[in-house]
């Protein structure tokens, strides 16, 4: 697993570059939008740049890419191996993803840090003045953000047990997450109807909440943590039930 990740060194470089490019382009778009103004919706240009930079980092850490090939694996019946062992398939998906992610992060995060430094020389990015405990909380949110994304991705993969053509459902996930998590644009820019959907879904904890917290525009309340905890538990419960029925479906359909 580690070896494979190293062989992907060029691919990682490409991924990092592809990550930075949209961020770069987006900056110019915002710069043009800001012409003649110093503030839009209580954001200054450097703050917006900083916002998107943080989006980029969270994206790197929390995104999942296994939906497609795992779904194919199931469709081709290759998971029989797992079902006969005491090691759960889900655990395998999880541990492989986390493992791969840690390696790729170990390589790409330093790269991103360098990029951040270089970018801040060229573009106006608000400097991040944060206390260490804030960084810990930020990391905490990234971990929970990853768990949320992971579980949704898992649901998509599990749908393969019922639907043949389940590949491509991740597009719905991407769009939903973009729209309702603050990844696309800060919440304050969204029309009110979307903002009300925000309140319901735990997706905001992936991007909007940690970023605005770090930027100092949001103060965290215990209620939020409670909400997040409940959301995670519910999602976990759904996953268990889902998996149970998926197995049932798999064996009754003859594998």
């Amino acid at each position: 697993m580690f070896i494979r990740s190293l062989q992907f060194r060029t691919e990682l470089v490409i991924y990092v570059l592809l990550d930075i490019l949209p961020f770069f382009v987006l900056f110019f778009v915002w710069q043009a939008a800001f012409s003649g103004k110093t503030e839009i919706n209580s954001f200054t240009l450097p703050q917006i740049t900083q916002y998107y930079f943080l989006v980029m980092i969270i994206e790197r850490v929390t995104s999942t890419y296994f939906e497609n090939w795992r779904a194919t694996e199931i469709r081709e019946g290759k998971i029989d191996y797992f079902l006969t062992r005491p090691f759960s398939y889900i655990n395998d998906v999880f541990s492989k993803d986390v493992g791969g992610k840690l390696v790729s992060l170990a390589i790409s995060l330093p790269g991103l840090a360098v990029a951040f430094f270089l970018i801040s020389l060229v573009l106006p990015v608000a400097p991040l003045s944060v206390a260490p405990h804030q960084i810990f909380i930020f990391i905490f949110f990234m971990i929970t953000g990853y768990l949320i994304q992971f579980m949704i991705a898992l649901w998509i993969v599990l749908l393969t047990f019922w639907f043949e053509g389940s590949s491509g459902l991740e597009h719905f996930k991407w769009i939903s997450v973009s729209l309702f998590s603050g990844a696309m644009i800060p919440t304050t820019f969204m029309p009110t109807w979307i903002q009300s959907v925000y309140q319901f879904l735990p997706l905001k904890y992936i991007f909007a909440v940690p970023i605005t917290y770090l930027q100092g525009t949001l103060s965290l309340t215990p209620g939020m943590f409670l909400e997040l905890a409940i959301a995670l538990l519910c999602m976990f419960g759904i996953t268990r039930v889902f998996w149970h029925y998926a197995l049932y479906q798999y064996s009754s359909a003859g594998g």
Partner: protein
Amino acid sequence: MSKPPIISITNLKKHFKVYKKKPGLWGSIQSLWHREYEVVKAVDGISFDIAEGEIVGFIGMNGAGKTTTLKMLSGLLYPTEGQPSVLGYNPWERKASFQKQFALVMGQKNQLWWDLPAVETFYLNKAIYEIPDEQFEKTLKKLVKLLDVEDIIRIQVRKLSLGQRMKCELIAALLHNPKVLFLDEPTIGLDVVMQKTLRDFIKAYNKEFGATIILTSHYMDDVKELCERAIIIDHGKKIFDGKLQDIIDKYARNKKLSLVFSEPVTKKDLQAFGDLKEFSDDGSHYTATLLVARKKATAVAAQVLSKFPVVDVTIEEPPIEAIIREVFSKEGS
């Protein structure tokens, strides 16, 4: 009398650079800045001429260079040295007029579109090879009849069995009436019945259309049934080129008799009949293997059966590998 050979190669060579990576994590890291490579001489100086209408068999073990040679003759690989000539063309130039006159069929690869009926690939090939309507219909009909695939050509290829797929692959390859046919392991993975069907078909095709055929195979039977002439290739070099019968007569001198006895027998008694290769007597099982000269094999078997308490006897050809080993050991010494 001499018509120029259809296929001609002189001192053909193909050397590959293969990168070596040390195993493990450290090896991967090392490969970031330094890669070792070695030169693999897949084909190292092969020469031969093939006349029109011949069916020639390439025999050799895995990695001997058979497929590589075929690929160079097809224009897929650029030779390191040597200039092949097929139908008067340089295959590497891949001229359309050349490509319309030959076909390459590889047993493990498919030409057919996976999720559509085979017949769709046939029509596609018709467009690609610019086969006139009448000729196409005629050839298709003939081939379909010869291979008896009328009912399966309209079924999606992915739903066909390996044997059926192979038949359709052959048809797809032959629709444009190639003058030269390269068959690379066409019967691999097929059951015995299907192998025979394909062999009969190839023979019939050669007779009917006069195509020149090069066939590579692991199966001695393929080569035996189809090819008068055989070329043995080992480690990129041509070891033998001549009539197949000569090889068999010369090197496949022996047949193997595997015997199972109901009572113990003595080694000495057996050795009177042939070269005793194996002998086993563990108190309850008595077996032996005798190597007997080909021509005498049946006669000896009859004698052994009458003289000894034989429970089971099997008469086998030595496998092609054994024959080749014999050939090589002869060349070596």
